[in-house]
């Protein structure tokens, strides 16, 4: 393989990076925002591996190993922080934390109403047979 396919792989890396940037800016779910950031890292990894192949050494691949390591650390910490945020507001919406933004910005309000959801299907309820056993209350630690 000559160096000309190098351009192809760099284009793929650039597109993945841009997609990740759009996802990070546009979505409001904390999990999807984090996954978009991870997709940006994937784009960078594609670039590095392509250059490693073009130069004929494994320096780019070593760098990608470090990227994977740091991504794993980042995932662990992000999950811990997201769980903490969820515990206080009971939601994964990032706009609930608008007070952390800088002063003077317009608050993000949900003005447009959502379209009518189709009614949930009503499932039949079976009459229980026998006696229900006694069970303790569920204590949720979430």
């Amino acid at each position, binding site marked *: *393989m000559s*160096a*000309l*396919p*190098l351009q*192809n792989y*760099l*284009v*793929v890396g*650039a*597109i*993945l*990076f*841009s*997609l*990740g*940037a759009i*996802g990070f800016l*546009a*979505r*409001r*779910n904390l*999990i999807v925002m984090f996954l978009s950031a991870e*997709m940006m890292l*994937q784009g960078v990894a*594609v670039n590095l*591996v*392509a250059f490693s*192949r073009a*130069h*004929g*050494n*494994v*320096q780019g*691949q*070593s760098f*990608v190993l*470090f990227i*994977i*390591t740091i*991504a*794993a*650390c980042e*995932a*662990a910490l992000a*999950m*811990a*922080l*997201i*769980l*903490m945020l969820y515990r*206080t507001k009971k939601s*994964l919406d*990032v*706009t609930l934390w608008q007070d952390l933004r800088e002063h003077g910005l317009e608050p993000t309000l*949900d003005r*447009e109403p*959502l*379209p009518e959801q189709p009614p949930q299907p009503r499932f039949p309820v079976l009459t229980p047979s026998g006696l229900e056993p006694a069970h303790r209350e569920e204590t949720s630690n*979430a």
Partner: protein
Amino acid sequence: MPQRTVLDVLSGSTAWKALIPAAVGMAALFLLLPRPRGRAPFIGALAGFIALTMMGLWWTHLGPVLIENLLFYSFAGGAIVAGARMITHPNPVRSALAFALVVLCVCGLFLLQAAPFLMAATMIVYAGAIVVTFLFVIMLAQQEGLSNADLRSHEALFSCIAGGVLAAALVAVLLRSGLGRMQQVLSFPAESAANLVQRTRQASHATTVKAMLAELGDDGPHLFTSYSRVGEAARGSAPGRELLIYLRDTAPHWDEARRAGNVEAVRPILAGLADRGERLRAGYDADGSPRLPAENVAALGVSLFTDYFLAVELAGGMLLVATIGAIVIASRRGERLR
């Protein structure tokens, strides 16, 4: 040299080649992002496929119909389509699964670039651990399905414009950078190097210094220059560096041996040059592209534990710190955040 202005840059055709698919892709993503009103999934998907086709035709270098190129386009197209689905699907579980598909396609691209260990490591760590962890978090936190926030997006128009401009700028720079010229820089002059090494080998079997130099022909007085050019072309690889070090160490001996006409001193130098040249030449294909070592894990291990040893230690320390931090952060109960 006259300064180039923005207008000069924009008037080239590569700017339009970079801009139009990015603009169509941007419009497609804008139509696909979840919104209460005005979301058009089918038109958006159609526009997305048109944009993807244009990108494949204009942005990539279409090579011959080999299985490599077919696999490349499949994996690249799969990664981009799955990535677009990930950022535009309202359901976060579907987004996470689409991200797993992105990781699998990127691993396919890694395999095509002679990185099998990275393929396996990325699949295990990303698709196997990170995505699963976040699926657990989604299932814990959003058990009722889609929430109000998932059906809306933040500044859809501006984020699509920002991403589209980013993609167009990156690709415009790539198209203008003349990666075809880079091939001359990156590729190894395989044929001329093979020629040189063969003549050096034959010359080392001659009996007098005059015969040796006659065998070498034009390269005789400039032997070391030719070899240093070959070594510089392969500077990134270990045999190339070895050749350059050998050249540096034996240059004074070569000069005095050649002037003194000492056959017994010249022959081992020629043999050494031919040896290292052959080893170097073996690391390249006939068209000059480098061959990565087949023992990818061994090569990675050598590189990590000799060149980047400090970084490995620091990465280990970082993992430890992150583990402790995650445990401490996540196990705090009942602390009220202000």
